């Protein structure tokens, strides 16, 4: 299907094919982007969205197919050519220098090295005009390191606009934004489109796709499986196209919460680099209850996960397990207290990439019987354990002797989940358990967490996806700059209400260290 009739086609992809070994990442993908149009590129992780955009932007070279911008073919493999042709890309992970100002970041790379002050006034005026025209409020002289995530994204967009981009590609732009920041971004995109820019919006969030796009392209397993006008479809049909099957949302049955298994009262933890510590956090994790933690990433989720996972200890306040403070606190102590941990980063923290599935399966329990006796490993027992996880948790893999780096993210996560749940935990710390997984794996992991809750485990679910938190949690807290909101029972909050807390509204006056210090 072509873009709306009459509109000038600014970008045309024709038969783009890209192979990585046996994997067909993009299979003969063709589409056109019209002037003043927002098209959404929808697909699960691994569907080929990012590969396609990397080809368009010149990071990869396509095996077959051509890219045309404004009617001219784009030479493959040259990011500069794409930039010069008017294609700007805002990556999911920002590419800004933290120690420079917003203005300096915007100008970076646009001017010759030996004339640093030349035309600074004109540049400043252009940036000011762009931020006014597109509603991108950023203080040009603020250091980027001090800006919020939403502001940094605005700097990235300004950077593209400053280079006279006429086509904007946004890769998962809302993943790090609060609902309010997301609406501001959409406002900007609408202004851009009104001025004749064209936008490719990459996402797997259906609601946002429905809201902002005029056309939706759906990718599955590297193929373009659907192309519809947004007005002619709905979320449900898009989801089906994305996964190719009917999907069932997780169900949470009513259940009376049990006693508090882990409590924090007025806990502070130290700041680690850019990650804020906890400030006066009070929290109770109850048996048979899923406690959801909502919040924009980088607001203390890491600190809370580190504390409960045994990597951090409180500098103030207290932590109690079953009503008593633990004698010592370390990852091993946490495991001994039957706390299962699903870490945020399964590649770096959750697994050892060059270890086999068997070796990874026993990563947390290798020192215990039956896997280890008097310092000797019992590899047969370890392999049996790995086989059991593979079978019970449906880990698709060549076998227990395969290195885990060969597995997809979803299967890796299933192994971690199996490792954690097979220990029959009383408390489960699930940090971003479904991030980056395809919908099939998401449902699997979520149902396992619900099943563990129904069997009486206390679950702490940390997620940046508000929909997920709201769907799965019995109670919800919002974390903001290391502080915790009150507990909101299931069904008492709207997304907008939680969004306010995520943006920092509702928290009391600036938190300072309690009485002892002040006195």
């Amino acid at each position, binding site marked *: 299907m072509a873009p709306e009739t009459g509109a000038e086609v600014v970008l045309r992809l024709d038969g783009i094919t890209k192979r990585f*070994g046996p994997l067909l990442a993009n299979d003969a993908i063709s589409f056109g982007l019209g002037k003043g149009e927002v098209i959404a590129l929808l697909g699960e992780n691994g569907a080929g969205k990012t590969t396609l955009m990397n080809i368009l932007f010149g990071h990869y070279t396509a095996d077959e197919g051509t890219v045309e911008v404004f009617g001219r073919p784009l030479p493959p493999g040259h990011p500069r050519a794409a930039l010069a042709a008017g294609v700007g890309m805002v990556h999911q992970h920002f590419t800004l220098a933290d120690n420079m100002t917003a203005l300096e970041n915007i100008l970076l790379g646009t001017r010759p090295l030996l004339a640093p002050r030349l035309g600074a006034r004109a540049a400043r005026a252009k940036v000011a005009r762009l931020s006014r025209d597109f509603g991108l409020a950023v203080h040009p002289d603020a250091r980027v390191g001090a800006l919020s995530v939403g502001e940094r994204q605005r700097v990235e967009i300004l950077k593209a606009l400053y280079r006279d981009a006429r086509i904007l590609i946004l890769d998962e732009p809302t993943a790090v934004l609060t609902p309010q920041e997301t609406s501001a971004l959409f406002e900007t995109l609408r202004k851009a489109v009104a001025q004749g820019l064209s936008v490719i919006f990459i996402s797997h969030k259906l609601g946002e796709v429905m809201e902002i796009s005029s056309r939706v392209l759906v990718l599955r397993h590297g193929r373009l499986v659907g192309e519809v006008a947004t007005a002619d479809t709905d979320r449900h049909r898009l989801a089906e196209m994305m996964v190719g099957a009917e999907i069932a949302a997780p169900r949470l049955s009513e259940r009376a919460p049990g006693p508090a298994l882990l409590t924090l009262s007025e806990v502070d933890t130290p700041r680690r680099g850019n990650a804020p510590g906890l400030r006066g956090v009070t929290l109770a994790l109850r048996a048979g209850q899923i406690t959801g933690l909502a919040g924009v990433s980088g607001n203390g989720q890491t600190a809370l996960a580190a504390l409960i996972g045994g990597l951090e200890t409180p500098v103030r306040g207290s932590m109690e397990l079953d009503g008593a403070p633990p004698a010592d606190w370390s*990852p091993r102590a*946490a*495991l001994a207290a039957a706390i299962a941990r699903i870490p945020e980063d399964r590649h770096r923290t959750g697994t050892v990439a060059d270890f086999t599935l068997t070796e990874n399966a026993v*990563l*947390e329990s290798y*020192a215990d019987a039956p896997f*280890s006796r008097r310092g000797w*490993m019992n590899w047969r027992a370890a392999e049996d354990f790995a086989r059991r996880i593979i079978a019970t948790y449906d880990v698709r893999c060549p076998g227990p002797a395969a290195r885990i780096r060969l597995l997809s993210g979803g299967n890796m996560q299933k192994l971690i989940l199996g490792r954690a749940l097979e220990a029959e935990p009383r408390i489960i710390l699930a940090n971003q358990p479904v991030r980056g997984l395809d919908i099939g794996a998401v449902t699997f992991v979520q149902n396992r967490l619900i099943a563990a809750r129904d069997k009486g485990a206390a679950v702490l679910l940390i997620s940046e996806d508000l929909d997920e938190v709201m769907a799965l949690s019995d109670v919800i807290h919002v974390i903001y700059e290391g502080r915790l909101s009150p507990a909101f029972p299931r069904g008492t909050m709207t997304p907008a209400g939680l969004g306010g807390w995520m943006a920092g509204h509702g928290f009391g006056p600036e938190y300072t260290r309690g009485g002892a210090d002040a006195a």
Partner: protein
Amino acid sequence: MRLEPIANPSLVRRVGLPAAALALTVLMASLLALLAGANPFATLGLIVKGAAGSKFALLETLNRATPLIFTGLAVAVAFRAKLWNIGAEAQLYAGAIVTVLLGTGALPLPSALLLPVIALAAMVAGALVLLGPVLLKTRAGVDEVVTTLLFNFIMLLFVSLLLEGPLKDPMGMGWPKSPALEKAARLPRIVEGLRLHWGFALAILSALAVWVIQTRTTLGYEIRAVGLNAEAARFAGIPVGRVMIKTAVLSGGLAALAGFSEVAGLKGNLTLDLSPGFGYTGIIVAMLALLNPLGVVLSAIFVAGVFVGADSMSRAAGVPTYIADILTATALLTMVLAIRLTRTKIRWR
């Protein structure tokens, strides 16, 4: 240029690339021989003959390989945990000093008891020498590459101090050397009359022991986990600092055995030139073996053969022995590259 991994390299790749590396090494040596005005084929032939052409030559090569197996194992064990021990030289000398201290009449024990006691004490000394830098690393984040490297020079000066002072042989005509070991403290020859001592057997046993530790024990699992991904290891509850310290004890101890074996098996006393850089060559040996403890034995014999062969070739053909350094260096570079390329494809755009 782009590097792409290959999941299942073909046989051609797995055999052809290392063969090409070897060919390149030989070619390099031939060019140098030509440059020195010698016939390259004759030169290479003389090196091979000098390394393995006779029973005497072969035993000499194995003798030379013995300390390299120990230092190679020391490096392989440490590097496996990403503990960059560049100080095997210092640990070797620590072992040698202890061997002299205990082997010159201090302990009135029979040989069968004395030798194990000395070996153990030497290992403790080597471990202690590495412990300092490792504690600095785990406690204060000090880079162990720098500290272990600098320890080599400190240790060499310390040995010099000992040999000019308390350990100086009163009968040594003023030469800086220690008194000779008593008979009971000498490692006997494996076969009477041939110059190969029991240190070589101990080296082979050590390689087997390290292999068993790495593949069969809980400690080996911990060491590999820490080396491959320290962050995941820490998260999973593996005590990373303690594993580092255990690794250091093992690595330092192995390097010290090189000093013990050289003094008790070959030299009989301690001098400043006990080691012509065995600690550093151990790094080459370990890297050539891809840190595999059994591979260390083979690569140590290869490297020793090149040096022994070049020595003998130099006497006959008049090509400088530096050719041995260049041969091992080229072999290391080309082999490491070849093995990397076995699993990686280069794409030029």
